């Protein structure tokens, strides 16, 4: 490691605590020296430890797996733990993700939104009633083609960080839109042979302008997804599927 002094980073944070009645939103700028390999997550912890212990932000895993530290980084949604400061200008602006309920400063309640979305879209395997009854621990699960299981796993990598939601111009205007996270989940169950739902069942969930037909292909989701999920092609897949659906 070199002994050279690092850049001085100026990190401006939109601070606001909606829990405190008198509090007003303000931009607070913190200065700190950049360290090698520094991520915004490390920088924020430094700030909280040495400069402002009231600074609110979320984190759990520090490795881009939990999806807690999503925030607007220079206006674009992203994960603080995956954002290397060396790839940014010394002036960095941070703000909480829009759309979600604000807890305080950079901390938003993505869990509440995601849980509502999951309930609404029934994002779990649906079996047929008779199968559910017949389900026993003794029957061996059917085998699955490895390619198909890879494809399902690829979509299952979603961490519900909310970046695609905050990056979506449609949701920003129309808050009932399910967003890429929801449409990706429906695509994930639609390709899973264990889920016995038919196209008409999926149509009931996303066949309107709050669902697949609300998407205006702005591709904000695709371009900000920290997990590089194939949102563009999966949304197109669901759109084709829902439009081609024939009533029996």
């Amino acid at each position: 490691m070199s002994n050279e002094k690092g850049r001085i980073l100026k990190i401006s944070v939109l601070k606001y605590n909606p829990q405190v009645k008198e509090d007003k939103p303000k931009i607070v700028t913190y200065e700190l020296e950049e360290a090698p390999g520094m991520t915004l997550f490390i920088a924020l912890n430094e700030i909280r430890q040495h400069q402002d212990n009231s600074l609110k932000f979320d984190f759990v895993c520090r490795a881009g797996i939990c999806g807690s530290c999503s925030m607007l980084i220079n206006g674009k949604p992203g994960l603080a733990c995956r954002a290397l400061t060396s790839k940014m200008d010394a002036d960095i602006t941070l703000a909480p993700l829009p759309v979600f309920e604000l807890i305080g400063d950079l901390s938003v309640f993505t869990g509440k939104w995601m849980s509502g979305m999951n309930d609404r879209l029934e994002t779990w395997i649906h079996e047929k009633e008779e199968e559910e009854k017949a389900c026993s621990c003794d029957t061996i699960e059917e085998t699955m083609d490895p390619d198909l299981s890879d494809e399902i796993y690829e979509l299952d990598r979603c961490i519900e960080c909310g970046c695609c939601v905050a990056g979506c111009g449609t949701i920003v205007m129309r808050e009932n839109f399910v967003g890429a996270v929801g449409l990706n989940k429906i695509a994930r169950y639609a390709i899973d042979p264990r889920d016995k739902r038919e196209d008409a069942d999926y149509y009931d969930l996303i066949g309107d302008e709050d669902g697949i037909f609300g998407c205006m292909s702005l591709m904000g989701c695709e371009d900000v997804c920290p997990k590089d999920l194939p949102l563009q092609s999966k949304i197109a897949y669901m759109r084709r599927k829902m439009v081609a659906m024939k009533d029996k």
Partner: protein
Amino acid sequence: MEVVQTRVDEVESKFGVKKSRTPAKLDYLQSATGLMLALFMWAHMILVSSILFGKDTMYEVSKLMEGKPFFGESYPILVTFTAILLATIFITHAAIAIRKFPGSFKQYTLYRAHMKRMKHSDTNLWFYQIFTGFVMFFLGSIHLFIIMTNSADIGPYASSDRIVSEWMAPLYLLLLLAVEFHGSIGLYRLSIKWGWFDGKDPKANRKKLKKFKWAITAFFMTLGLLSLAAYIKIGLEHKANYGEKYIPTSEIQGVIK
């Protein structure tokens, strides 16, 4: 996510009312009409730009559109019918696509703020599409109505007179800008929306599509501007003889012989 508005749906589904299939049809129809209009505009521009090959070429093209090579005589009513058909597709497309416009000042400001934050080109392109679409409600309607009612007056002199002496030049210039941006952005978005060129690597192919999109815009914009300039030049030269129709060189030579 707090959802309030789906209650009607839920109640209906409990009573066995099937969820409406109309949103799917509208989505499809918006794309289909848009595709037809965009492809028509390519053809239109190629026909219009025939003026760059001389007045005689443009004259022949205009007669071709009036069916002369097929019927032996010119039937401008064919052009009227085409314009009526186009107007129908145009109005259908506008009626469906208007659903996507920001529905209130609040939605408008929210989107503008989002654009400013994101600095994301596809997000910006959508706004240009809304803007140019709005412009075309008016400019496109005027143009279509004039062609519908003056279908016999398409030719090297008649069209140039319309552009210069009848003051259509500024309208056509704005319409050209609106059409070329709206159409090429629309085609790009259609490809993404339906995954036409996703291939094995949708991300890489989207980048290529976008480059292609700009190339298409540049090509047709140049062609359009050059053609408009050619019509303006002819219109200015023909100002004194406003109203006089073009006689093709072959006919003049025939008379001289």
